[in-house]
């Protein structure tokens, strides 16, 4: 069994598992700072142009955005379930769950792509023939710049996550994980949950302003 022995720098499998998890948490910390910097810049401009950002936010596609949120939340649920299944040595079932979650990720990206296409036709994407008829065009341009950078970066992270889930799913399907060592699934799960969490923040900041009341 490939995972039966720990790698040479480790004393035992438990240490290897601890190390993998700590490593992923530290990595998540770096991602928090990465997206955090972007979100901070967004908040600075939003406090400077509250009305314009609210106006711009009303042009986002709330239906697609909400659907995508539901899709990611569901996929996170499936991944959490997969970790538990792996713990109970239900390797094949865990693989199925991981692949379904990956599939939902693909649906997310497809919807995102459709959304971008629509916005491109409405000339809302900065740098790509942007045009907005209003004296507030500058601020709207800024809003959509944040929109595309933030959701674009997030989409890249989702794509990486999909690849990871598929790969880990394949290993799980091959019964590569014993109960004693399934940290790749746990660690992949942590990453996926984080990507989901970032989306929640982006959804709230991008789609929801200007829509209440």
């Amino acid at each position, binding site marked *: 069994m490939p995972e039966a022995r720990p790698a040479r720098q480790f004393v035992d499998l438990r240490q290897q598992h601890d190390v993998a998890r700590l490593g992923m948490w530290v990595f998540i910390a770096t991602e928090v700072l990465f997206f955090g910097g972007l979100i901070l810049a967004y908040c600075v401009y939003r406090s*400077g*142009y509250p*009305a*314009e950002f609210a106006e711009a936010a009303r042009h986002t596609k709330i239906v697609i955005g909400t659907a995508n949120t539901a899709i990611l939340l569901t996929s996170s649920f499936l991944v959490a379930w997969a970790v538990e299944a792996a713990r109970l040595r239900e390797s094949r079932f865990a693989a199925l769950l991981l692949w379904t979650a990956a599939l939902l990720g693909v649906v997310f990206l497809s919807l995102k792509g459709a959304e971008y296409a629509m916005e491109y036709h409405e000339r809302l994407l900065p740098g790509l023939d942007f045009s907005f008829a209003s*004296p*507030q065009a*500058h601020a709207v341009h800024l809003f959509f710049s944040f929109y595309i950078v933030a959701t674009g970066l997030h989409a890249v992270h989702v794509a990486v996550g999909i690849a990871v889930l598929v790969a880990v799913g394949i290993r799980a399907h091959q019964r590569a994980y014993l109960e004693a060592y399934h940290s790749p699934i746990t660690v992949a799960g942590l990453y996926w949950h984080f990507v989901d969490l970032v989306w929640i923040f982006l959804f709230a900041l991008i789609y929801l302003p200007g829509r209440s009341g």
Partner: protein
Amino acid sequence: MNNWIEHANPLVPSGETAHAGSVDLLFDGLLASALLVLLLLFFLLLRFAIHYRVGNTNADRDHRIQKSWRLETAWTAATLVAFLALFVWGARLYLNLYDAPAGAETIYVIGKQWMWQVQHLGGQREINELHVAADHTVRLIMSSQDVIHSFFVPAFRVKRDVLPGTSEEIWFRPRKPGVFHLFCAEYCGTDHSRMTGRIVVMPQPDFAQWLVRQDVDGTLAAQGASLFRQFGCGGCHGSGATVRSPPLEGLYGKRVPLADGTTQIADERYLRDSILRPRAQIVAGYEPLMPSFEGKISEEEIIKIVAYLKSLGGEGAKP
């Protein structure tokens, strides 16, 4: 230009301005503290390195201590106290720079690649030179046409970055006549090191004559009045306008209630922001109808219009 060197001796307070003198005193204080620590440390390091060298077996090495809460607390506390004193000293002097004293004479400065443009209120213009009267407080309102520059007069110990899209203020009161370096102190491209000039301080009567001798297209305010017409501002803000807009007579220096419930003083920055970003601060009771002139108006034109608006009266509207 030899007098530039004699004003630059840091150990002797130059006193070109009162502020410069205070800054030099602060420098002396900082230097004294630093030298104290440095000499003490060097003395100890040298002494230990020599006295306790391997070759000296006679040195007393009994009763070595590995740690001492008392010592750590003592030198940490001493350091903190010294630092806090220096902080307060520097902070108070710094805060002085933020508010020009009353009665200051305003002059406008535009920094652009790679020159300084100066506009006196009477319409006198200078390039890379600033003439002022000795023993008078001068207040510079500065902005940039392009990138970030920095207005630096070493002799007066003052410096302030000059930004595009907003204006910054600096003030000084030269005590006596002289000629001083003006440098750009924020890297701004190819000729950053050639964006230099002179501050020429003249006795008041000479300065008054200098002002009169310059070629002038009319005072800054008069030029601003014609720009006011040229840009069509009177269409909304003039008498007989069909659009309801905030009146500009007597506006300068007044407290303006804004639509979001806050109030703002109508100073130079408020006026410039109203021209460039009118929606950022909507006056209470008015519709947000004013278009932005961002990108359509140069720094020079803004300065002239602001000067004109100030001439329409208001609190503290003395130029």
